[in-house]
């Protein structure tokens, strides 16, 4: 397969998954990738790859193309907010392009609720070495975040 470029769903500061305050993400049990500490302003959240919006919740979504599936989790334990920080734009099962708006999301509301607004962006069902060219520092929504080199499964 040709490598898939995963782009940033939001604007902020890139941090390693190991700094996510949730051991399941920090230990990469969900998959390899990066996290973004969001710039504290209401943001338009973008699709990280071309594909189908397989799952869409106010606190997380998955875009998948074949076996390449990327999970974006908007903050930690944010399922508890019951959608209060989000306003959906796209609909579940919709075909989206990388960079297409998925929802509006406000990290300020997440932090005001006492939760971490850090956003893991991970490759599902991927071995750790499938992710390469990881970006560093500040990232703007839509810019390259990392490359998924292989679709390995099973």
């Amino acid at each position, binding site marked *: 397969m040709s490598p898939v470029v995963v782009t940033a769903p939001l604007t902020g500061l890139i941090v390693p998954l190991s700094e996510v305050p*949730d051991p*399941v*993400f920090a230990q990469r*049990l*969900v*998959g390899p990738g990066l996290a973004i500490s969001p710039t504290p302003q209401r943001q338009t959240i973008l699709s990280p790859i071309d594909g189908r919006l*397989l*799952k869409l*919740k106010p606190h*997380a979504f*998955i875009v*998948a193309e074949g*076996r390449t*599936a990327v*999970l974006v*989790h908007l903050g930690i334990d944010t*399922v508890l907010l019951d959608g209060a920080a989000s306003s959906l734009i796209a609909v579940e099962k919709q075909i989206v392009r990388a960079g297409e708006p998925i929802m509006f999301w406000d990290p300020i509301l997440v932090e005001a609720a006492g939760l971490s607004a850090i956003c893991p962006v991970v490759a*599902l*069902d991927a071995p750790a070495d499938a992710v390469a060219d990881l970006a560093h520092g500040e990232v703007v929504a839509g810019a390259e975040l990392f490359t998924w080199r292989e679709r390995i*499964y*099973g």
Partner: protein
Amino acid sequence: MAERRVVVASAVGLHARPAALFVTAVTKIGLPVTLTRRDGRTADARSILAVVTLDVKCGDEVLLCAHGDDAEAALDRLAELLTHG
């Protein structure tokens, strides 16, 4: 073939975090395991994507199936994990 019917306890259903823990446990066991909903939809329990896409909610009954020498003991462990959220 070993089978277990269990009711999923995780308050948010089998979504990112509980699904990752479950799939990690399945992968450690090293046997092919399937997860089937009451409506018959089934997923490879070694794939987070497949498990999350199955959209299992808290309180849903699911069927775990495995083949192999240690399948009975393996499903006991997995059933324990699912029923304790």
